[in-house]
């Protein structure tokens, strides 16, 4: 179900916790699985749950509780835009509107070519860099002017 490399990474995470506390690694295990698969199909969640000796429902609770997990397929590039107060004060809402226009999609939608998914995000803890957005969960982009968005999009278009 998962690659050897993913399993190796999960094993490394398991080792961080005391014996018998494998479940503690669920968040990183799901993250690793999602990075490999692009999103988290339920079979993958069940596989990860079995791997960590926990009930699949408990793993599903985790996968649905934390909003960086994707339970539906997303585009190759998921852009999560913060529109909360500090970002909004710095133009976060306009960033989102601009992205919607540029990509021709709304929040929680994916471009027909499968390249981009747009999400509305919650505070990312980087309000000093506002407005911010996250690319594929792990890369933070700050001070997003229209110009920087254009550059980011053309960079990602070509990937």
């Amino acid at each position, binding site marked *: 179900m998962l690659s050897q490399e993913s399993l190796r990474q999960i094993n490394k995470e398991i080792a961080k916790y005391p014996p018998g506390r494998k479940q503690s690694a669920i968040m990183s295990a799901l993250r690793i699985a999602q990075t490999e698969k692009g999103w988290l199909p339920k079979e993958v969640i069940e596989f990860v749950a079995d791997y960590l000796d926990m009930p699949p429902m408990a793993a599903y609770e985790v996968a649905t509780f934390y909003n960086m997990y994707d339970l539906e397929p997303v585009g190759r590039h998921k852009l999560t835009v913060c529109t909360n107060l500090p970002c909004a004060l710095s133009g976060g809402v306009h960033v989102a509107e601009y992205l919607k226009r540029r990509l021709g999609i709304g929040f929680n939608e994916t471009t027909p070519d499968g390249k981009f998914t747009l999400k509305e995000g919650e505070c990312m803890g980087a*309000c000093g860099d506002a407005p911010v957005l996250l690319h594929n969960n792990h890369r933070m982009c700050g001070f997003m002017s229209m110009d920087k968005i254009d550059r980011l999009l053309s960079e990602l278009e070509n990937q």
Partner: protein
Amino acid sequence: MSARALILAGIGADADRTWRLQDYVARGGYDTLRKIVAEKTPPEAIIAELKTSGLRGRGGAGFPTGLKWSFMPRAFPGDKYLVCNSDEGEPGTFKDRDILRYNPHAVIEGMLIGAWVMGCTRGYNYIHGEIFQVYLRFEEALEEARAAGLLGQNILGSDFSFELFAHHGYGAYVCGEETALLESLEGKKGQPRFKPPFPASYGLYGKPTTINNTETFASVPFVLKMGGEAFLGLGKPNNGGAKIFSISGHVNRPGNYELNLGTPFPELLEMAGGVRDGRKLKAVIPGGSSAPVLPADIIMDCTLDFDAIAKAGSMLGSGAVIVMDETACMVRALERLSYFYHEESCGQCTPCREGTGWLYRVVRRIEEGLGRSGDLDLLCSIAENISGRTICALGDAAAGPVRSFIKHFIDEFIYHIEYKKCLVPLAVQDLGSQINVNVSPT
């Protein structure tokens, strides 16, 4: 950054290159730990020093750190855990991110000292999921510390051992609440626990656990190095030392500024380059989005410390200062905050699960020009029914802004309801007001 900086001292333009162990050591890092281990400083002495310093928790609640550390049952046999709360995700807060990416070893040293004091054998740093690059850097810093014999078994050749690991969140603000964080560390949903029991007796995996904020841990080496009295002297009585203020919103130079507690607010505003475009200051949320908002005239008279801000009717919280100028529509601002708490409620207890959604829907309605007379009373009543009735503080955090925004800016709310229009011209607004979007002009 302030000249008085401690945690952020020596961190300048090349901050992204000076976070490594060698840089920290060059700045005097790990001196305190080495001294403690070499001299076998008694834990009681360290706790006493911390108490003298007046160091209070930097995560928002401001609980005295020395006192917290003294609660830990040091003699408890078996595992005891030390947890660092780097799950910073309240709108306005972004200081832990900078500490972790520019000075991660200060946190590690602070945790080592905490482990020494409380007899913890294992620790975790829970890092906000959205700052994943920072999590990776912290993992690197841990590797450096392990390689240098600063972490693991027999630290610095002594019989002191402590294992420290990084754990990342993945998008849940509520995990910043310490018991939700523990649940999350155990691999569950981050739903806060009812207290008592408190983590000091029943924490991670049911074992005694102490949880401190990133900045608190990072402060500890500096407090001990300069001495409790000296640290206290930086600030005001009961508000010892310096702390990091994160300023965002309508200022020219948003960012982190390390100031002595008790610094007048206008000084911080000036450091941040003043209000953007020379506009007029309207309101400030002084301690993260859950702190009550203060109008300009009140905040301009405040000093930045726990007691002064509390006296003004708000709280210093984590020192996250959100600045709004005259172009900000306060209804829209509240709508953004209410949306946040609605989205981030964990769903466990009734008042927060149901109440935050209700608050948001009513505020949104008013924002969109669909408000009804009686809505403001309704909002206050809902907020009152949430406050103090929930398992954790998220309910209070959601209710606080509603009450303070209405209290201080009731005119704007009434105007929205009565005239279906915004007092602030839409053209100048950054917030993207939605008013009239859903209302056809009559």
